[in-house]
């Protein structure tokens, strides 16, 4: 697996698209500490940037 493909797979796993991590990425779905921190980071990003929300482009265009 190329490095770029591995990175794509890892990002897709972290974003909830894939159910299994790429080879070598040792974080399983049952690692509550990791996913708790990751969800916390994502929620933090949402709250930090939430003041400027705009309409989704593809709705009712």
């Amino acid at each position, binding site marked *: 697996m190329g490095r770029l493909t591995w990175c794509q797979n890892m990002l897709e796993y972290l*974003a909830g698209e894939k159910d299994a991590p790429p080879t070598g990425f040792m974080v399983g779905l049952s690692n509550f500490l990791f996913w708790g921190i990751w969800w916390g980071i994502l929620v933090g990003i949402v709250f930090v940037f939430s003041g400027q929300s705009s309409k989704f482009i593809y709705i009712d265009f």
Partner: protein
Amino acid sequence: MIFNTWDYYLLFLLPAAILFRIARPSIQPLIIVLSGCYFFVYFSYTQLGGAIGAACLLIFLWESFISRFYKPASWFCWLGVVQTILFLVVFKYRNFLSGLIWPMPSQNPLYWRNSFLPLGISFFTFEFLHYAWDRYRNKTETGTVGEYMAFILFFPTMVAGPIKRYQDFLPKLRSIPADWALDFQRGFTRILAGLAKKFAVADLLTAYTNHLNMRDIGHAYRAVLPLWLLAYGIKIYVDFSAYSDIAIGSARLFGIKVPENFDWPYFQTNITNFWRHWHISLSAWLMDYVYIPLGGSRVPVPRIYVNLLVTMFISGLWHGAGLNFIVWGLLHGLMLAAHRWWRHRLGAVPSQALYARAFSWGLTFVAVNLAWAFFCMDIHTALFFFRRLLGG
């Protein structure tokens, strides 16, 4: 808005998904139907056409009724196709098409002053058309009326896709996985990732894309123009892929995996592959219900180019009731035709050398992003943008 509101999560997604997962399989479709009706009425009433918008729920109820008469080779299927296209024309294209004949609204007898779009009409009409056509060709089973209503009223995908297929959806509805913990973990992760993309990237870029108007383009330093257009190219990708993430993640909470919509489209090294990885559910729909019925690639070569142009013309028109969207679609049709000519007429085999792949990627990326000018601006503004960009 919808997916970036608390209402969506607290009033709809969480209650409906939890109820759905604890309910008996026999009443699961009913939960989808009732929550879908509630969703349509609530957001239509509060965000779109008010009471009249909410009354457009009747379109779904009528479609559920008439679809029971769809049989292989039946004229009822044609009736379904025609009425669905009529819904779309009346609500979305009436002012645009009549405006081509009577440009002044005051002189246009067909002009609809307070026109509005029923929630998700551009997307649910594709699902109606697919079902009517596939029943005509006997490519899908009828299912029960409850199952069909669950298909068209499944609210995570109702507003902007991904565009589903009944023959793909039905088996998933009938066998919801028991492992709800996995679905909830993946679903919530997907939703949060989508929200983070939307808020932190797409909305941030709005500060740049807002400048794509006649006044700002006229006053801007020339070198900044491509950056604004690039910002739009990134924004539309992140925005719609974020939307798709939230829709797919929401569906996952119900235990239903809906089709993916994006697969790294900006990494593709030609325009054909770009369309195989961009808005995948739309591309596949256009391929199956427009391009292939026109003859696809099994016709003489000049007809293939015409089929590509017609398909992308329809894609452009579907994206918006405006000449700029038609130009955008035709530009992509021309690019697809040029790529096909390059590959098949010249017998060109893509080189695997790094420089060749980098060049192909750069060419595809630049072409796609330049074409966005006709997507995000009207014709006059887009032409003015290119005049300023190229001529100063």
